[in-house]
C-alpha cells in the first residue's frame, strides 16, 4: 500500500539544523539539507525512496523543536479486529 504521506514531515521554519535527526536515524534515511532534514533513500538502498525510512519515529522523538512529525493511523489486527480492518 502506498503510504508516502507516512514519511516524516518537516516544518523548516522550526528546524535549527542541529542534525540530531541524522544521528538518531537507524536506517540512515536522513540527510541534512540547507533548510532542514531530507528523508531520502541511502545510495546503497535498493528500495524506493518511500521505503527507505522505516518509520521508527526516532527522528521525531529527538527533534528539540518539534520540527519533525511522523503521522500514523492506529488499527487493530488479529481475530478481534479482523472483520473491521
Amino acid at each position: 500500500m502506498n503510504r508516502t504521506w507516512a514519511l516524516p514531515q518537516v516544518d523548516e521554519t522550526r528546524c535549527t539544523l542541529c542534525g540530531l535527526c541524522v544521528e538518531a536515524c537507524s536506517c540512515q534515511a536522513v540527510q541534512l539539507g540547507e533548510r532542514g532534514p531530507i528523508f531520502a533513500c541511502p545510495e546503497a538502498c535498493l528500495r524506493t525512496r518511500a521505503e527507505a525510512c522505516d518509520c521508527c519515529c526516532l527522528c521525531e522523538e529527538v527533534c528539540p523543536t518539534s520540527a519533525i512529525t511522523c503521522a500514523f493511523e492506529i488499527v487493530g489486527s488479529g481475530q478481534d479486529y479482523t472483520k473491521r480492518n
Partner: protein
Amino acid sequence: MLVQNLSQLPFFARLGDDVLRESAPHIHERTFSPGQVILLEGDLCQAVYFVVRGVVRTHRTSLAGREHVLAYLGPGESFGLVPALDGGPHLASVDAVTDTTFYVIPCEHFRRIVREHPGVALAVLERLASEVRRLSDVVEDLALHTVRTRLARFLLAQAEEAQPSHRWTQEEIAAHIGTVREMVGRTLRAFAATGLIRRERGRVVVVDREGLEREATGR
C-alpha cells in the same frame, strides 16, 4: 432552513418550532478552516457554540507551552456552556480540526432560553453532568495511572474504530494523554519490543489486544 437545522441539535430538539423561529434571528452561522483558532482560554464569553459540521479540539496550554487536549467535539456537541452560565471566562482554547460550521448563540439569549424553557435547562444540566463524569475519569487517569497505562487505553480506544479517523503524531498523543512526546515515543517502542503493537509505515497495529488490555488496567 435554520429552524429545521436547529431542531436537529440535541438542546433545541426539545423546543417547539415557534420558539425556534423566535430564536433564529439571534443565531448566527460561522465557519472556520482547519487550524483556525475559534477562541482562547481566558477569553470573555460572548456566545455558546454548537457544532453543525466538522470537528473541533478543546485544549489547555501551560505557560511553558505544553498542551493538554480536553476533547474533540463533533456535530451536535457544544462549547461555551459553563462561561455562558456562570459569566466567567472560557475554560479552554478551541480550534478547528476540519472545516467546521457552527451555530453561535449570544450568551444573553442562551440564558433567556434556559430560563424560559425547562426542557432546555434539563438538557443543559444533563450535558454538564456527563461532562463532570468525563472530567472525573480524566482526573483519575492523570492522577492515578502511569503513562504506560494511559497510552495502552488510548491505543485500544483508537483501534476500536471501524475506520481510522485520524493520523496521529506523537506530540498529539502526548497532548491527549497528558504527557510529553518523548514519553510517548519511548513507551511505543517498549510496547513494540514486547509484541503488544507492531509499527508499520504510517501505522501502529495493535497485535496483542489482551496484553494491551492488561497494560490498560495496570495489571
